[in-house]
């Protein structure tokens, strides 16, 4: 944004660069919809503002991407499901509207697991998202040493999910900020897989109005960026009470500023002992302790803590998830919007066939 302010690059140029990158990285399958003309128009508007010196702030002219489970006015929103193929919402999700109000340029809607149910970004109807790092020199090199002659098509890594498209979009430099959603790790997990910052704000801080729900009582819009400072800036713009979402807190939000982390001396880092699950792979475990050692060697205090309710979390998650999913999916009956089958013997038969035709096994399993 400094570059934009100083005129080193114009929003339109930036937008075009990102668009061409999106085209170049099409094989990643990060995007479902790329509304090129809309994006260029938004960039043009932004450029006009810069010329007049009326920039809307840090986000003005910045290319962003949004997970395809956020409603975007006039732009198809599919949730990577046949159920919503062709569904064009008539309104913007609050977080999308807030980004646009700050001048952000919407590059596209990113891929996900169908209805955000998954943690691999492999279960959407548009196919899996491929991790940009699969194509890095280091990884290619490793692969070549390990296994020769493997099928090039299976020679890629997953992004994690369900916001894998958003993570891949940020990691591939096709945008600067992407919105994901996080219910049980759907933002943080792909961010970790793709080496970007993934942030799940506390429930109630950011409005989920317009986010097509997975589990209402845990869904939170997530932020994916290239660095923590960017995440803080975006959070500052998205946070706050939304009259359309009764679960957002009413208290005014204080602006977020990240302390400059020159010194980790004063940090105290807890390591929950319950997280040291036996299922953890040795590779992850060694990276974990490596990070802890790194902090400790720089002077931070690293202690063991206990989160005794951890063992209940999966059970609670599954009870809430399955029951709320069954409830939230009830509206997808083919009547008001979305897919409708050809069967018209009775309303009940139509419901059943419509839903059987378009929900995948994961979705149907959870219902």
């Amino acid at each position, binding site marked *: 944004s400094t570059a934009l302010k100083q005129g080193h690059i114009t929003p339109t140029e930036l937008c075009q660069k990102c668009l061409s990158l999106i085209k170049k990285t099409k094989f990643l399958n990060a995007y479902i919809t790329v509304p090129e003309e809309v994006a260029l128009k938004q960039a043009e508007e932004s450029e006009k503002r810069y010329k007049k010196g009326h920039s809307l702030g840090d986000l003005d002219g910045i290319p962003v991407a949004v997970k395809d489970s*956020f*409603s975007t006015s006039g732009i198809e929103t599919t*949730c990577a499901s046949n159920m*919503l193929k062709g569904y064009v*919402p*008539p*309104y913007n*999700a609050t977080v999308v509207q807030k980004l646009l109000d700050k001048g952000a340029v919407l590059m596209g809607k990113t891929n996900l697991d169908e209805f955000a149910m998954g943690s691999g970004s492999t279960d959407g109807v548009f196919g899996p998202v491929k991790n940009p790092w699969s194509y890095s020199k280091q990884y290619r090199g490793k692969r070549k040493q390990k296994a020769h002659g493997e099928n090039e098509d299976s020679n890629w890594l997953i992004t994690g999910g369900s916001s894998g498209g958003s993570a891949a979009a940020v990691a591939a430099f096709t945008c600067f900020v992407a919105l994901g959603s996080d219910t049980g790790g759907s933002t943080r997990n792909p961010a970790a897989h793709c080496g970007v910052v993934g942030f799940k704000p506390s429930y109630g801080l950011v409005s*989920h*109005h*317009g*986010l*097509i*729900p997975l*589990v*209402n*009582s845990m869904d939170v819009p997530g932020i994916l960026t290239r660095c923590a400072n960017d995440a803080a800036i975006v959070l500052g713009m998205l946070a706050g009470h939304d*009259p*359309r*979402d*009764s*679960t957002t807190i*009413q208290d005014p939000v204080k602006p977020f500023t990240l302390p400059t982390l020159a010194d980790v001396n004063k940090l105290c880092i807890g390591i929950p002992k319950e997280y040291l699950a036996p299922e953890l792979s040795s590779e992850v475990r060694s990276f974990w302790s490596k990070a802890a050692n790194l902090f400790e060697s720089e002077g931070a205090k690293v202690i063991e803590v206990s989160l005794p309710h951890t063992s209940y979390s999966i059970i609670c998650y599954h009870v809430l998830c399955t*029951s*709320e999913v*069954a*409830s939230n*999916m*009830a*509206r*997808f*009956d083919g*009547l*008001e*919007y979305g897919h409708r089958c050809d069967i018209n013997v009775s*309303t*009940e038969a139509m*419901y059943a066939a419509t839903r059987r035709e378009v929900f995948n096994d994961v979705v149907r399993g959870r219902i």
Partner: protein
Amino acid sequence: MAAPVQRWSCVGKRWVLAYIDGGSRHGRGAAIGFTSRRKRGQSSVAQQPLVTAQKSRKGEHEWAAVVGLEIHAQISSNSKLFSGSQVHFAAPPNSLVSFFDASLPGTLPVLNRRCVEAAVMTGLALNCRINKKSLFDRKHYFYADLPAGYQITQQRLPIAVNGSLAYSVCVGKKPSQVSTKTVRIKQIQLEQDSGKSLHDEPRSQTLIDLNRAGVGLLEVVLEPDMSCGEEAASAVRELQLILQALGTSQANMAEGQLRVDANISVHHPGEPLGVRTEVKNLNSARFLAKAIDFEIERQIHELENGRKILNETRSFDYKLGCTMPMRDKEGKQDYRFMPEPNLPPLLLHDTASLPPGADPQQVINIDWIRERLPELPSETREKLIQQYGMLPEHSFALLNEVGLLEFFQNVIKETRAEPKKVTSWVLNIFLGFLKQQNLTVNESPVTPSALAELLNLLDRKAISSSAAKQVFEELWRSKGKTPSQIVSEKKLELMQDQEALERVCHTVMEGHPQVVMDVKRGNPRAINKLIGLVRKATLSRADPTVIKKILERKLSS
């Protein structure tokens, strides 16, 4: 359960005071008068002689009916319970539908403050305990006019509980024999209305209108403390008046703003309650009474013939006057209730619990609402009785017609006539004209001031009461004229001119010597004939008592 036990067979004599539909109440007794000692002995029963014998003895017992009600009242509000779309009856189909009402994915409910206030007001008026914390739940079922696949309601913790509703039923033959009864109110809950399905049979299509989807409803659950259709109808009528007085619902049954489901069972007093049936979607008080009475009769008949009552949902066919099982609601539904995750608990305050510095727009103070409750119908009736010495049944009649009380009060304000006279005119003549022409009070061509002026003329004996009726008819016909104008145009004023009246009397006496002779011979009724003749000669403009005096003087001279 403290269900009152009542001899079912006495119902025919009962007469409901808060009456339901003009004219329909007479002769109904005969229709529903029911004898519990029926003749049995159809073939199916005869095959089981033992059982039949037992039943026969049971049949000698009295039957008691137990009736509970679930009432849905549409909240009178500008917008829906959880969305900003407007609430209007008979708007073009699907013209009042927000994204939330159409259940577009990602939309969220936002509670309407007005609906909460309406629920609190209604709860207070019905002597309920208001829960300072209440919760919203989802009730799931698939139906085309329920776009989200669930209804948001208050299943676990409703907004108001444990209330009561007092209503009056006439117990004797005279309308003045009023008995006040009480039905307990289990709870009042806030919930969403559904849309409407219109079935186009010839094209085998179903059309959906979502205008009603999401309108706020108050579900009022009445405990099974009633024992017949008339009691249920009176309780509903009283509730309707209360809702209208509060302004929390227009409660017009014909427009579906008040819908009643009745739970009915019969048993022998002292024995456990019987299996109940539910009669759904009763949209007039008269049909409610009819449906309940039919259902009680049907259940007794079934049981006396050795059959069982099924726990089922039935509908009332008002054309045939009977209830029938509903096809599409067969089988027990699992509504899969679950907490509504998008709505935090609804918290209410009283003055004591009000957080300091709270934004009055963000909190609801129960005490504040309580202090501002309008006068309830029972209080209004009591006042009328105290203030004007009115008979209880007249106070009921005044409140039963929308706008009639206000009309009455406006007349009273502007007239010197006795309240009893005003009551009689308003309830007999004015209401009679309205009924005859099927008009509401608001549509009346006669204004309160016009009637007040007419009653003033009558009060100072400027016109006779028969002339007053003539003037009223004229007022009804020709809008805009004042009673005085009509009186002078039609020369209806009483003859104040004593001499002129004496001349008329004289002429009449001269013209009818035979009658005069009769009087003089001592026939007491003959003078009435003379009075009549004089009145005819004066075109009813003379006061009969004055005529009588003159005649008597002349005859005795």
